């Protein structure tokens, strides 16, 4: 019997993960692997006369890397913005499932909620055009990722000694784990505005991970990267998904990456779902080939 198959048995694999430097769980969703985590049903979004999304429905399952692909202007980013609360669709429901500590199942309607409330439910995201806090250091950016887990007290903050400092140190330990995971040690105290583009993309992933996501939304995490940076980023996404169990929803244009990484793909075109399935099903789907992937001549 090979070493790898021994290790892949649940408890031992977990033990292996635990013996590394990682003490904290990144994944905050207690939904069983394979069960529906996010259910998007009949979502329609209009901007004036433009129909950005019409009756979009799909399901993201716990533990999957779920890619959303489609041509430019198909509504991929709009879909992500609806999930994270930046846009409010006119029709449809977006339901996030969760399981409480007491094993009760809960369903949260995301359409009615504000972005920061959705973030508090564990929906973390990165942006297509990097939206970091440019004047702050990498560390402060990641600490801001911990914001929803920290007590906010003006007076305790002004006193600093005591609760405020204790809390900082407690959450710093979590942040340091994310820094380790994403190999950002060298830039800890650098102002993120001055970092290279590829590193900034990684910092954005890190900031989202600091939320302890139940669902991680990545909007083109590899846009504008060279092959090597893309490989690094793909490895980080796989680590986050496979080792740490974080469910990921991903928008990406590089088909090689999408086909290799994702467990499930939803294809959008002109705001409509034209395909949904496993990567092999999608690459064989005629509509998708016609609209996006391209036919062989």
């Amino acid at each position, binding site marked *: 019997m090979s070493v790898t198959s021994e290790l892949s048995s649940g408890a031992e694999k977990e033990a292996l993960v635990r013996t590394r430097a990682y003490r904290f769980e990144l994944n905050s969703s207690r939904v069983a692997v394979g069960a529906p985590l996010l259910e998007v049903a009949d979502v329609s979004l209009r901007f004036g006369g433009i129909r950005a999304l019409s009756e979009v429905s799909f399901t993201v399952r716990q533990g999957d890397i779920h890619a959303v692909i489609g041509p430019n202007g198909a509504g991929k980013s709009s879909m992500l913005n609806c999930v994270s609360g930046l846009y409010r669709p006119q029709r449809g429901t977006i339901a996030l499932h969760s399981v409480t500590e007491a094993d009760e199942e809960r369903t949260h309607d995301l359409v009615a909620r504000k972005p920061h409330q959705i*973030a508090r439910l564990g929906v973390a995201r990165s942006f297509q055009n990097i939206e970091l806090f440019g004047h702050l250091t990498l560390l402060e950016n990641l600490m801001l990722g911990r*914001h929803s887990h920290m007590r906010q007290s003006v007076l305790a903050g002004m006193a600093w000694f005591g609760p405020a400092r204790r809390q900082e140190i407690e959450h710093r330990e979590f942040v340091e784990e994310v820094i380790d995971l994403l190999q950002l040690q060298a830039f800890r105290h650098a102002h993120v505005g001055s970092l290279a583009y590829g590193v900034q993309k990684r910092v954005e992933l890190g900031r989202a991970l600091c939320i302890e996501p139940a669902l991680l939304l990545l909007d083109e995490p590899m846009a504008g990267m060279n092959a090597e940076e893309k490989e690094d980023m793909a490895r980080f996404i796989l680590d986050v998904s496979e080792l740490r169990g974080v469910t990921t929803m991903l928008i990406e244009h590089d088909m090689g990456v999408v086909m290799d990484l994702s467990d499930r793909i939803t294809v959008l075109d002109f705001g409509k779902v034209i395909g949904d399935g496993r990567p092999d099903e999608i690459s064989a789907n005629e509509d998708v080939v016609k609209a996006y992937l391209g036919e062989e001549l």
Partner: protein
Amino acid sequence: MSALSTGTYFTSYRREWALRRTRAEYLRLGLIVVGLAVLPYSIDFYWLSIVNMILIAVIGAVGLNILIGYTGQISLGQGGFLAVGAFSSALLYQRAELPAPISIACAVVITAAVGAFFGLPALRLKGLYLAIATLASQEIIVFVARRWEFLRDGSAPLTVDRLHIGGFEITRELFEWQWYWILLGCAALSVLAARNLLRSPVGRSFMAVRDQDIAASAIGVNVTRAKVTAFAVSSGFVGFAGALLAHYTETVTWESFTLQVSIVYVAMVIVGGLGSVAGAVYGAIFMSLVPVLLTEFLVPVAGAVDWVSESLPAIENAVFGLVIIGFLLFEPRGLDRLWQRSKDYFRFWPFRY
């Protein structure tokens, strides 16, 4: 942030987060403490009164910088909020006969509440539009202060009795000297409180709102709450400064809280350095000293040249304006950045970077 010298390592987060981390920094702090301790013994009461006004300005500027420099919400309502702090503390002390520390604490809370209220437009408005909205708050508050007879002693401005706390009372002979120590303590506490707040989650949420409000909301920062808190905290500091001003000057009148005051404070924050507590301190010192030194320098000249003595206020304003323009052109990040750069220069010498 300036560069840290090589060879400085930390073995605990606690040390890394300390405000002073190297021996040189402790040495500088020690020098400042010694300097401040010796200061009242080495200058006369005229200069000490200027130092006292600077200490009050420091508190106000630190408060304003939290709002403008750290949260990115421009405010021209500083004078109005100073007035709220000054009038509340004066009235509570004078008419309700509360002890001074309690009246000052109440003034801080009242000003924070008023500031939060006038900060509500910030939820909808940004940049220049917010500047106009806060300008309105300035004008409204000063208008009320000017017209409301309750805020006067008959036809004379509201006077405040000499400060006494318990058995301690400020004496006439040592007036400036005793106030120096009170104001120094208050200013030091305010600076420390601001520094601490800005390394805690609340302070970080202010900066997140300044840099990227959409991303801030997407990672769980309640932007509405952060903005209102920033207005409240900032106004709290300003109210503190206003209350101290009322007790120190012993008269409160709307004329000391006009738009001119608001603009001087904005200038302090810009000249000192946006987004830096130390910068606010430098800015307060600088902008308070410029007119004083200018008068000091121009009065002998004015004795000899007629037109200088006639247009002394105009010259002051012109120099004031030139200083601000100069800073915006040559060092937009203010005195604080200048200080950081000079530190780096010596640290890296003989190399350029």
